[in-house]
């Protein structure tokens, strides 16, 4: 039996984006960070937070990270994931970077994203911002900014959808659906 629960509706997502923006603004003080979005929806989340901060920080540099080539489970896949272009259009040296991903689960994607970032340079500091933290970490990595924290099991599936990528906004928890999460 599978069931679906709405974690966030459109309004909820907008609220969480505002909250993330405010928290990042507070933590960084006068130091304007650069943003790095993890494909696909981490990029969208980074853009949303950037838009929310446009009055205070008009000049946030935004990069994109595709972690496919850095995944630790490529041997287990039947197909090679479609690649997007990683693009860091700013100097990392001496820069504080906020990484964005829409959901954090095992932490393996974050590990891969950090490795991508390090191959571009040596940032001054890296923070992690997520819209949903669903627990279940398999690596010692924790987000610095969290929109919503929710307890989930191994057979649950958490999905965040954005209008830009999927047609509409929403966050869902599907229970008893599959063994691998997000």
């Amino acid at each position, binding site marked *: 039996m599978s069931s679906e629960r709405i974690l966030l509706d459109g309004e909820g997502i907008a609220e969480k984006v505002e909250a993330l923006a405010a928290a990042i603004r507070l933590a960084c003080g006068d130091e304007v960070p650069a943003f790095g979005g993890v494909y696909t929806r981490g990029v969208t989340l980074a853009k949303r937070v950037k838009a929310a901060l446009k009055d205070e920080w008009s000049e946030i540099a935004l990069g994109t990270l*595709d972690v496919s080539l850095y995944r630790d489970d490529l041997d287990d896949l039947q197909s090679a*994931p479609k690649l997007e272009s990683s693009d860091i259009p700013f100097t990392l040296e001496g820069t504080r970077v906020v990484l964005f991903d829409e959901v954090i689960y095992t932490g393996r994607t974050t590990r891969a994203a950090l490795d991508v970032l390090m191959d571009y340079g040596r940032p001054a500091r890296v923070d992690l911002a997520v819209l949903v933290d669903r627990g279940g970490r398999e690596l010692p990595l924790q987000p610095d900014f969290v929109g919503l924290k929710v307890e989930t099991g191994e057979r649950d599936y958490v999905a965040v959808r954005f209008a830009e990528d999927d047609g509409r906004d929403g966050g869902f928890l599907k229970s008893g659906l599959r063994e691998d999460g997000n």
Partner: protein
Amino acid sequence: MAETDIKSRKDLLDIESLSLAEIEYLLKTAGPFKELFRRSVKKVPTLRGKTVLTLFYEPSTRTRTSFEVAANRLSADVTNFAVSTSAVVKGESILDTIETLQAMRTDYIVIRHGASGVPALIAKHTKASVLNAGDGFHAHPTQALLDAFTVREVFPETQKKKILIVGDILHSRVARSTSRIMRKLGMEVGVLGPGSLVPKGRPDFMNAFWNWEDALAWKPDVIYLLRVQMERQEQQFFPSLAEYHRVYGLTSERFKQVEGEGLYLMHPGPVNRGVEIVDEAMTYERCLINQQVENGIATRMAALYWLKPEEDQG
């Protein structure tokens, strides 16, 4: 993962057996690999712990090096099986060599051989992924892919674009593989070469021309000059290199017309200057030969990334 993923294959042996979706996938995947070359760290950890073996029964420094660079940038370990110094010259059969390779538990084998079909034979008998780097007159799929990628860079929409392939069509696996991929991408293919070097039983779609005037009047967008393969010409199909240049080469005069019309130039390399192509054409801004070299690495990375050896090695 996304539903647009294309299932991996074990081997890359020719263009014929690839679907259009697979070709499009490989071309699209090569793009992000090429962008890696702009980073200071050009390497990604994707094939860490995997081994790639290059096995060249015919010499080709360029293709072998291109594969080696591609494999290195994916963090694979690369070993060159030096054929001329190995037991092959002592008469070891291909199948014995395969057994040796199998025992080495290599994950990918890049092979070039003078006889058509040898890569397919090796692929059948090994769990490793086999990449055909040219076999006889048959196929050279990674060359075709890099050529297609290069054309796509200048013409994102390839439908109805025209490519003119010039030279020894009959003995060229490049002509065979590249014309095939261009056709699959919706391009029109024309060939120009000595009558003795253009296949008689060519497919209907292949427009054949016997002189440059007619070929240029066909209004090609890209001119693809094949290398005159001195080493493969045991029989003489044309009288001399000077004669070849005069009749089929891109001479100074023809180059002026090509330049005037803004046509793109390609060549699989290495170039015989003064034979296929006049010196000054090499620095022409629409000469894509150097891009082809760079794109070759990106395309081969895409191929290695996509292929998957059979599991349970050994």
